[in-house]
Structures are given as structure tokens and as C-alpha cells.
């Protein structure tokens, strides 16, 4: 590696009203280095890379790129310097072809005459198979990510920024991505890799810079560290993780038989003949790549989209035809994925948000009238028991941070003592300490005899807390097996396997 760093950051500070997102951040990336930027949600990783990519501008400090001062005013300037970025949330148009989407995200002068040919060449060179004439709408999430990567590669980047790229991929897809990244690195392209997944960073990265609360708290060679030591550097305290216990399982509390439901969303996934059961004391984990029917399954089970009576049974009572209120009365509570706007009303206060889902089980609603004092008392209880950091229950739900709101919503459901709890992405976007709290609360609830269904994209989480395990792919559910009986490879095949076999002919039609 050469002496001059490709990218050098000195004392970068960025303030937003009321918060310092980055405080005197300095580090450097050498050519060809795979550099990890590690930190919890809210540590300031995204803000930092947005400044490198020219989306935001630092308040203080300076950057050098290849030895020369570097201050991109906008992303196109950053791209002209050879900086490419793959965002966590893709910016692709579903109704346009791969080639059109690639062209849209490039600087004008960089788009050549035979773009299709270029796309094919690059995709073959890096093992990222992609047909430029296909429409984005027909691509899987992993394939969509390839479009974003190829868009960057076509511009011969010297630095590629990847923001949490693996959260939407199966383990096999992750392997392919890592191969590509290693090849790029070998060719001299530096990679700034943002993640909070420690094992990935240990396999892929040469160097890691750890951010906490906007400050650099450490830098290390991740290969010399353990996942635990990295986690503690990231979080700043030692962690007590939830541990899976051998539970004695009771009777079946939630039984789902032959559940099928078309999605309300035209781009959604239809639930297709799903059957499973959850016993008292059991935590059943459902894994899957994002967008394979998790949201639809949760909304069907919670009663937002009723089906026929016998498809869903709670403690032997057929509830498939009931709405959420009827199911709650029988003991089923649910936590949706989207906190603001689904699990909580953003502009309503915390105590008003309690009425949304707890009015039936907590006796807040009686004969149509609301007992506001009861709602306020319950909200106060939830805040106290689940350590929700808020200035008071009068404050709007949207004023809480993501992790605190999640604790509030999870607490609001758990403290209703549900006999069946359905929870989607319980710790998505939540810091590690809060995640551990939520996991322990779920286990306590299971110990008390509730049946819990956890639907998550975080395999580590499911491995840590669930007793039994299944995988959802394309709206179909795999067989349920005890957690630990499947290897990560087998799970990966289940997550993507259904794609591979059953999907291939459908894909060919879609692209034809």
C-alpha cells in the first residue's frame, strides 16, 4: 500500500439543532483498504458518509482525497472524484429497466453510447449477474443491490461506500457480495463499509474505526478482535445478552392452518398456505429476507386483514374472521415493524397512543367511553417499567428516539399480558442495550406461559432467543425445526432456495 492515504478526514464536526452528530472525527483510508465504520444506530455513521459523498457538508474540519483538499458540494462532484456510494435504501424506479436506472444515477458525461454492453461487461467481470434490459420491478432485493453496485462500478470508483449492504441479503448473497468487494479491493479500490454486524466486519475488513455518540472511540484491526470486544467498544459497556433456555412447552396457543391471503399492496407478497403453531412458553422465530411476506403475515395474523375463521385459532377459538380488537380480547397482541404511523400515531401523546391497542385489555374503553385517567396511569407504568426515556407521557410519540419508542410500544403490548404475542423486527434500529432489554422481556413473557412469534431479518437475534425456527420466502413458510438444528448454510438456502427453484420460470416470464 502506498504512503498517501486515499481519503483523509481531519477533525470533522457536524452539528444539527440540539445534537452533535459528528464530533472531531479523524481517520484515513489507504488505497485498496477495506475499512469498516462501526457503530450503533445513531452513532453518526450515516452523517459522516453523507459528508464524504457530498450530501451534507461539515461544519468544521477538512477532508483530503488522494492528497488534495476535497470538499464536494454535491454528490455529482463526489462521483467525479471517483467516490461511489450504495445506499441502504435503494433509489431505483421499478417501472424502468436496469440500464435506464443505471443511466439515471450517473453523471451525464459518464454515460457511454453502449451502456447495455458496459453493464454486461462489468457484471461479468465481478460475478454480479445482471440483465440490463430487465425491469427493476421484477428483480429481487439482492439483484436490485447489484444494480446500485454496478452503477458505481461503471464510473471506475476509487472509493466505494457501502451503507449496511447485507441487511437485505441471504447468507449466500452475502458471500457473493464479499467476493466482489475483495476483488475490487485487490484492484486498488478502497471500500468504506458501514455496518453493525460484527462477524461480517471481522471476515471482510482490514481496518475498523468505531464511532460512538459521534466520536471516534477506537480504531483496530478487526481480525485481531473478537465480536465481543468489538461490541463492547461500540456500546461502551459490557453486555448481558439474553440466553436461550430449555423451556418446557405447554399446549398449542396459536394455531395457523392453511392461511392464504393476497397482499393489499400491488408490489406486496401474497401469503401462500402458511401453517404452524406456537405453544405456551415457546418463542417461534421466523427468518427471511426483507420483502418476502413478513409484513403481510403479521398484518394477517394481527387481524388487520381478516381471513376465514378456521385459519387462525387462539387457544382453540377460531379468530381468522375477527379484526384486531376481537383478537386482542382473546389475548393476542402484536407489534408491527413500522413504529411511527403504524404502531403509534406520530402526533399523539404517549398516553393517547396507549388507547390505540390497550383499550380493550386494560379496560380503558368501557361502553364506548374512554377512561383517560386509566390510560395515563398505564402509559406511566409502561414508561417506568420499560425504561422509556421521555420528558413525560404528554409528549408526542414522534418526539421519542426510535429505540425509546420501540421500548414503549413493546412495553405497551407485553404489559397487557398477552397469551399470544406477534412481534415483527423487535429490535430493528434499536441500540444494543435496549435490544437486550427487549429480548429479556420477551423471554420473561414466554416463561409466564405466553406463545410468542418473532418475525425478524436478524438471524443472530432469532438464534439467540427462539426455541423453534422457520423461514419465510415468497410468502411461503418452511417447516418448523428446533433452533440450532439447522446450519447457517441450510437456513440461507431456505431463505433464497425457494427463489432459486420455484422462482426461475416466473422470472423468465417477467423479463420476457
Amino acid at each position, binding site marked *: 500500500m502506498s504512503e498517501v492515504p486515499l481519503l483523509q478526514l481531519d477533525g470533522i464536526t457536524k452539528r444539527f439543532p440540539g445534537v452533535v452528530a459528528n464530533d472531531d472525527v479523524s481517520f484515513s483510508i489507504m488505497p485498496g483498504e477495506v475499512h469498516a465504520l462501526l457503530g450503533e444506530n445513531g452513532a453518526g455513521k450515516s452523517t459522516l458518509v453523507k459528508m464524504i459523498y457530498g450530501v451534507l457538508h461539515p461544519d468544521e474540519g477538512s477532508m483530503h482525497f488522494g492528497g488534495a483538499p476535497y470538499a464536494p458540494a454535491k454528490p455529482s462532484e463526489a462521483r467525479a472524484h471517483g467516490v461511489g456510494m450504495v445506499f441502504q435504501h435503494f433509489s431505483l424506479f421499478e417501472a424502468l429497466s436496469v440500464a435506464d436506472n443505471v443511466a439515471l444515477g450517473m453523471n451525464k458525461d459518464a454515460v457511454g453510447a453502449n451502456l447495455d454492453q458496459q453493464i454486461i461487461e462489468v457484471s461479468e467481470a465481478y460475478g454480479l449477474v445482471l440483465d440490463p434490459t430487465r425491469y427493476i420491478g421484477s428483480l429481487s432485493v439482492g439483484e436490485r443491490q447489484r444494480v446500485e453496485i454496478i452503477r458505481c462500478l461503471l464510473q471506475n470508483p476509487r472509493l466505494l461506500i457501502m451503507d449496511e449492504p447485507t441487511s437485505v441479503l441471504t447468507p449466500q448473497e452475502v458471500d457473493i457480495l464479499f467476493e466482489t468487494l475483495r476483488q475490487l479491493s485487490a484492484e486498488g479500490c478502497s471500500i468504506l463499509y458501514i455496518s453493525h454486524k460484527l462477524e461480517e466486519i471481522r471476515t471482510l475488513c482490514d481496518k475498523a474505526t468505531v464511532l460512538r455518540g459521534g466520536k471516534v472511540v477506537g480504531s483496530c484491526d478487526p481480525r485481531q478482535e473478537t465480536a465481543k470486544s468489538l461490541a463492547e467498544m461500540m456500546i461502551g459497556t459490557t453486555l448481558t445478552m439474553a440466553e436461550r433456555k430449555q423451556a418446557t412447552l405447554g399446549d398449542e396457543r396459536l394455531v395457523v392452518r392453511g392461511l392464504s391471503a393476497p397482499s393489499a399492496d400491488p408490489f406486496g407478497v401474497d401469503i401462500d398456505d402458511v401453517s404452524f403453531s406456537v405453544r405456551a412458553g415457546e418463542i417461534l422465530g421466523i427468518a427471511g429476507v426483507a420483502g418476502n411476506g413478513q409484513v403481510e403475515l403479521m398484518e394477517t395474523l394481527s387481524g388487520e386483514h381478516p381471513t376465514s375463521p378456521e385459519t387462525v385459532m387462539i387457544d382453540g377459538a377460531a379468530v381468522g374472521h375477527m*379484526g384486531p380488537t376481537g383478537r386482542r380480547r382473546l389475548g393476542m397482541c402484536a407489534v*408491527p415493524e*413500522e413504529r411511527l*404511523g403504524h404502531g403509534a400515531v406520530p402526533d399523539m401523546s404517549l398516553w393517547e397512543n396507549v388507547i390505540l391497542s390497550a383499550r380493550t385489555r386494560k379496560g380503558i374503553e368501557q361502553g*364506548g*367511553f374512554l377512561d383517560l385517567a386509566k390510560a395515563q396511569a398505564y402509559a406511566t407504568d409502561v414508561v417506568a417499567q420499560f425504561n422509556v426515556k421521555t420528558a413525560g407521557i404528554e*409528549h408526542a410519540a*414522534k418526539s421519542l428516539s426510535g429505540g425509546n419508542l420501540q421500548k414503549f410500544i413493546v412495553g405497551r403490548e407485553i404489559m397487557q399480558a398477552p397469551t399470544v404475542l406477534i412481534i415483527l423486527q423487535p429490535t430493528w434500529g434499536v441500540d444494543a442495550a435496549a435490544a437486550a432489554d427487549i429480548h429479556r422481556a420477551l423471554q420473561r413473557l414466554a416463561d409466564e406461559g405466553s406463545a410468542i412469534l418473532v418475525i425478524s431479518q436478524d438471524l443472530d437475534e432469532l438464534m439467540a432467543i427462539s426455541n423453534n425456527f422457520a423461514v419465510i420466502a415468497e410468502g411461503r413458510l418452511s417447516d418448523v425445526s428446533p433452533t440450532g438444528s439447522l446450519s447457517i448454510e441450510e437456513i440461507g438456502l431456505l431463505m433464497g432456495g425457494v427463489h432459486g427453484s420455484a422462482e426461475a420460470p416466473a422470472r423468465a416470464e417477467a423479463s420476457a
Partner: protein
Amino acid sequence: MIRLEPRKEVSKHLLYLTPVMAVAVTIALGLVMFAALGKDPFRAIAIIFYEPLTDLFTISEMIVKATPLILIGIGLSFGFRAGVWNIGAEGQFTFGALSGGAVALALYQVEGFWVLPLMCLAGILGGMAWAAIPAFLRTRFNANEILVTLMLTYVAVLLLSVLVHGPLKDPEGLNFPESRLFHEAATMPILIAETRAHVGFIVALVAVAVAWVVLSRHIFGYQVKVMGQSPKAAAYGGFVEKRVVWISLMISGGLAGLAGTFEAAGPVGQLVPALPVGYGFTAIIVAFLGRLNPIGILLAGFVMALTYIGGEGAQISMNLPSAVTGVFQGMFLFTLLGIDVLARYRVRMARRLPAEKGS
């Protein structure tokens, strides 16, 4: 460039203060407008906004105007909170008046305390029936209720006109397009002797009280708030959108129909083609000026009534055009919306923006 940034949490006090500021800004704009017309601006404003309050008769006339505005505004506030945009209360008002009036004419000269309540019931059902058309089309075919309610207004007004030109015409009325004058038992009892203020005002006050209880203490009030702010959260909470659409349209239609019957059986005393004078539309302004809050609507109803009465006064004593009333009502809505934007968003630019710019 001017950019609007949403404020993190909007202070509740500010939300209640904005209508007051809107009134102040409207008056200030009114001063400018009258000065530009070459009239004495302060005298004009005094005539419109102060003088009606100094005389018992004009106050009673304000009650006459405020009664339908408050009733309709209360009804509309439920739907507006839930995101159900019934802007055709004028049509429901008209059809309600027609239904209630038809009962009065069918029972012409029939005595009995039950005649008037029966008319009111018919008026409520008529307004509901007229609102049921957009409710059905929206819940069944997802038709936009804004268009349907608005267009049905013209249908209702023309229907009234056809009927008073034909079947409901006064047989002894020298062929004028008017119905018979309603008989004693079909007329609203007067509240203040020697004036036109009728007991409908008491009903409006009761509606305000009931709406207040429903909105703050009843699950339906909670439901419309959640539905309007975040429909997905409403689904999660177990609220069914179609139900909320139906109920809120039935409430607004029913109250508008009742207001129509009161108008026909009260100040007008018969069915005439000119019965709908725009209360249904003005009530939209009343609902928003009152922050969709029952007490606020009560106050806003009086402010709007003041512009009607004051506008008439200005026509008589200062020779101002009758459009003055409409101009003021329009300015109220405009300044309110403008100030609202400033309350909810922060304006980001090099220079500060004066509040008037919001209008």
C-alpha cells in the same frame, strides 16, 4: 430560496392562538382594502366588527346566522378530523330543508306538538340520505367524496327549485315559485321575543356539548383523530375505515339537514329557491377557524355571523358592495391557512418573513 421545515412538536397554545391571529390579520388586511377603496377604513371595520355587538337586535340576528353555521360546522369537524372531506354540506342542508319542509307542507294546518319534531327528524334523515350517496360511492367504489359531495350540492339546489316551481308550489301563491308559509305548529319557537332567534340555537349548543364529550371522551372521537392522522395506525388499532367514513358522513349530513330544516321552519318560514345561501360552504371555514374543536366552532360561528351582519351594515351605511362579506370570509380562511403553515413549519431563508406574507 424559501424552505419550510416542519417543527418537531407544535405547541398546543400556538395552535389555539393562530385563529385569533388570523382574525387580527384579516382585520388589518381589511383596513388596507377599505383604504384602497377610498373609504374610511376604521369606520368600515367598526361597522362590520363592532357595531353589530352593541345592539340586541343585531345580536339576535347573529344568533340566527350562527345557528346553522355551528350545527353544520360541528358535523363537518368529525369528518375533517378523519380525513373525510365532505364539502357538500350545502347540498345536505338543502335536501334536509326540502325533506323537513315537505313534511310541514304535507301536514299543512295539522296541529300538534309533534309536527315540528317530525319535521326535524325528516330533515336529519334527508341530510343523511344525501350524504349516504358519497358515503356509498366512496366505500364501495373509492370515489372521491370531495367531488361527489360538491356536485351533489348543485343537484340538491336544482331539485329544490324544481319542486317549489311544481309540486310544492303555494296553490294560492299567484304562481310565485314558493311554497305555502308553514303554519304555526311547523314553525320554530322564538327564543327572544320580537326577534328571529329561535330554539335551534339551543339545539346547536347541545350539539357543541355532545361533540365535545364525544371527541374527548368517546372511542369514536379517538377513532376519527387516529384515522385522520395515520390510517395504518387506525387499522392496527382495529378501526375500520369504511365505518368511520359512513359515520362521519352521517353525522355531517344529519346535522346539515337539521340546520336546513331549522332555516326553513325558522327565519324563512317556507321553502323558496333562495333558501340555500351558502351556510354549508361558510361552515367549512367555521370548522377550520374553530380548529375542529367544538368550543372553537361555537366561537368561530359567531365571528362568521358577525361578518354577515356587519357586511350588511356596511352596505347600508357606507354604500359598500355586498361582496364585502364574502371577501372577509375568504380572507379568514386564507390567513388562517397561512398562519397555520407558519405555526407548523419554520421558515428557513436569509431574511425573516412577516406574518402577513402567509396570506
